[in-house]
């Protein structure tokens, strides 16, 4: 790193030291390791020496982790890119143009977006592997993959935590949001590029922390970290709190950056009435993140203090409901943090694929906004088993009401598809599949909002199937739709339509066969959180596992296909979908700058009733040839 960050005072070329460099993540890893060893040792051996002086204690590992994450961030380039300039020290910063730029701190929103995408794919594969282990275990009614129930439950926790906080919350927002939002609003950069550059590197740190949690001991709470259960577990929960803290901090910074970018970096003429649907999705989800992520961070901080000091906040209060309340205050909006970008994507992609004007656009936006608002009023439906009937009523009511603004997204899309000459491309197919899946997830959600049903199927596989239909079924399918839709933008290359469709049908069948049976499993009495179950449930569990593994293979094949086409796909024209939105008016992939001339937006992006473009200038008229 020192070879690329040299002293500004000596700005003559002769004073610039150059030597081949490793990607700065290597330096970050080394610094993190050193910082952890130093601070852990300082705590456990000097400042907080325990009886029998263990080398790693809950307190020492917490302090060591904080030091390691700080050192990691500094090592990947925050030292040169943020800290030195913040204290007035000059910095020379040469960003490599090769693959190494993806393995270091960057202020380029496109690099950051791809870094986020790679990080969330990493999280998806790791958490997916955990899911495969769980399904292998459940193929048999006895313990046979894991040696004890705690190991199984720790794996469930890692799966849920990494999926929710590094894929669900990050994949579409941190990844596609960072890459596309500045392009979609006609800007060359995001509002706070330095902050954005820092935030990305918290994601791998957070994923690694959660994945390494079993090193400290088992934790049996799942992604919810329930107290007082967590306080009865060994120390693995400490890394759960810390990992989630890193991941949520990252998403909080993304939320601030994207909100300010949409509000302040818009091109001339891009009025509120013309903001792209995907940007509306990012705006609403960012507001949700800004409200609810700090809430859960404070809750988890108290949980961490309970594990480390220990301060028995949630055990001495006498009711497990205290923690449940503060967790689900965040927990249910989190579902919409995951799924609202998918709603926006449907409304972004289908008008383009149908070349038909977006139907009732305002209602689509109203739907997104009201889903955002109502998502904060439904949390207690997760606790119906612990509530009186009178307390259930308002939460049951609002949970059912939230289906109305959700339905707006469907109405907008159905109206748009009406008499459209839809191109049945892979992104189209995936969006339609996503809508089908969410319909099942949504309808079963309305069922679960009814206390009578809820109390019967609570904590059964019916609930597991329901939320997987909303998370995988809606968000993950839309995530893949986004990959295929914007692959030509990222690379200038096209995927194989045949393989894209075959693999999409593959995952659609595997997903539905696996998770529809989970509803039945739940109705037959299959509990969550158990690796051992009655023998009569084994045949259906075996089938679910079979198709879940096929689903996992299908996802991996999708990634392999996308990765192959990223390098070897046929070159394609710059706007292959004939979209009017601004990102497609830049070169594919974008050159050094998104737009050499900032475009002026003169009409909405979703009016396909005439052929006139939505912008008034050729936005890359002056772009260098290589960038086109």
């Amino acid at each position, binding site marked *: 790193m020192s070879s690329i960050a040299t002293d*500004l005072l000596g700005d003559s070329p002769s004073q610039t030291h150059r030597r081949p460099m490793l990607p700065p993540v290597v330096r970050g890893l080394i610094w993190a390791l050193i910082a952890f060893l130093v601070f852990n040792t300082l705590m456990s051996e000097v400042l907080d020496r325990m009886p029998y002086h263990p080398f790693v204690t809950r307190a020492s590992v917490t302090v060591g982790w904080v030091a390691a994450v700080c050192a990691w961030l500094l090592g990947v380039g925050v030292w040169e890119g943020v800290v030195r*300039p913040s204290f007035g020290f000059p910095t020379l910063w040469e960003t490599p143009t090769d693959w190494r730029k993806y393995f270091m701190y960057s202020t380029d929103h496109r690099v950051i977006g791809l870094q986020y995408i790679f990080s969330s794919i990493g999280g998806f594969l790791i958490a997916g592997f955990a899911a495969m282990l769980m399904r292998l275990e459940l193929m048999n009614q006895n313990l046979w993959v894991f040696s004890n129930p705690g190991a199984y439950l720790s794996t469930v926790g890692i799966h849920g935590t990494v999926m929710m906080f590094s894929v669900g919350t990050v994949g579409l927002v941190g990844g596609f949001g960072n890459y596309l939002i500045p392009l979609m609003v006609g800007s060359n950069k995001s509002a706070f590029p330095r902050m954005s550059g820092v935030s990305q590197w918290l994601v791998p740190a957070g994923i690694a922390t959660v994945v390494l949690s079993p090193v400290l001991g088992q934790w049996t709470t799942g992604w919810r970290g329930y107290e007082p259960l967590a306080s009865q577990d060994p120390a693995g929960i400490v890394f759960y709190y810390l990992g989630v803290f890193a991941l949520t901090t990252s998403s909080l910074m993304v939320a601030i950056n994207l909100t300010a970018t949409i509000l302040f*970096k818009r091109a001339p003429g891009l009025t509120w009435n013309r903001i792209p649907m995907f940007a509306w999705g990012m705006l609403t989800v960012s507001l949700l993140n800004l409200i609810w992520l700090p809430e859960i961070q404070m809750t988890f901080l108290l949980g961490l203090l309970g594990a480390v000091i220990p301060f028995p906040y949630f055990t001495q209060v006498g009711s497990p409901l205290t923690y449940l309340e503060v967790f689900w205050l965040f927990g249910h909006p989190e579902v919409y943090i995951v799924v609202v970008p998918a709603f926006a994507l449907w409304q972004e992609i289908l008008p383009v694929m149908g070349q038909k004007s977006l139907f009732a656009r305002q209602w689509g936006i109203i739907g997104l906004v009201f889903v955002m608002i109502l998502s904060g009023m439904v949390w207690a439906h997760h606790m119906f088993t612990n509530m009186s009937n009178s307390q259930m009523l308002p939460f049951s009511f609002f949970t059912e009401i939230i289906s109305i603004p959700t339905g707006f997204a469907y109405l907008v899309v159905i109206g748009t598809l009406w008499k459209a000459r839809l191109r049945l491309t892979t992104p189209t197919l995936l969006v339609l599949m996503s809508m089908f899946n969410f319909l099942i997830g949504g309808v079963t959600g309305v069922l679960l909002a009814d206390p009578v049903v809820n109390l019967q199927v609570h904590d059964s596989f019916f609930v597991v199937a329901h939320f997987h239909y909303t998370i995988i079924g809606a968000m993950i399918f839309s995530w893949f739709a986004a990959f295929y839709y914007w692959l030509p933008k990222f690379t200038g290359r096209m995927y194989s339509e045949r393989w894209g469709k075959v693999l999409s049908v593959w995952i659609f069948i595997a997903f539905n066969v696996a998770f529809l049976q989970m509803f039945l499993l739940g109705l037959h009495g299959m509990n969550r959180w158990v690796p051992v179950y009655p023998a009569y449930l084994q045949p259906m569990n075996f089938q679910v596992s079979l198709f879940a593994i096929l689903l996992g293979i299908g996802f991996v094949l999708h990634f392999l296909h996308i990765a192959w086409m990223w390098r070897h796909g046929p070159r394609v024209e710059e706007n292959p979908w004939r979209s009017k939105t601004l990102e497609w008016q830049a070169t594919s992939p974008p050159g050094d700058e998104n737009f050499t001339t900032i475009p002026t937006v003169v009409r909405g992006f979703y009016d396909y009733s005439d052929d006139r473009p939505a912008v008034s200038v050729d936005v890359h008229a002056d772009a260098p040839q290589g960038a086109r």
Partner: protein
Amino acid sequence: MHDVIEPLTPRELRKNRFGLLLFVTSQLVPTFVLINVRFMLADEYVSAQADLLLGGLLPALLLLLGAIPVWRAVRFAAVGSTDRMRRQLTLAGIVGLVGLVTQIWPLIHHRYDALTPFGEVHLASVGVGGFFTLVTLILLYSVIARAARGQAGPEHYWGVEATGFVWSFNALSWLAIYIVMFWL
């Protein structure tokens, strides 16, 4: 590549103010959670052994007083009086440092039992407040360091103004926690 610090345009200044407002607003949420937890766990109880000054009134007063030189520094920055700006920032830094020590003192020494509901909530509040004060001071010292290198003044006004906003937020949020902890 030479880092050239460009003066902010009015729109960029508004953007920065908005971004900071978003951040500060988001950080009101944990403060609110902390206040709720205080009543959930300890109701209105205040330990008779609690020190009203250290970890209470003294840091509240010092942080509020420190806001005066910070905002004077903002005014001096706006008119280009950089020496006076630096003096005011240094004064605020000293006040803030003393404020931080008085704020986190109960973490080192307290007379009440830490493992009681009041003790837990008070020490958590002191820790959270101390963390925010530390962040505020780091921001302040970064501006002082930049000012020493001629990178803060009328053309580079934002850093000083941001410090003023963050300082004020920190002082007010601690004041709220102090009132909730000892008086409500």
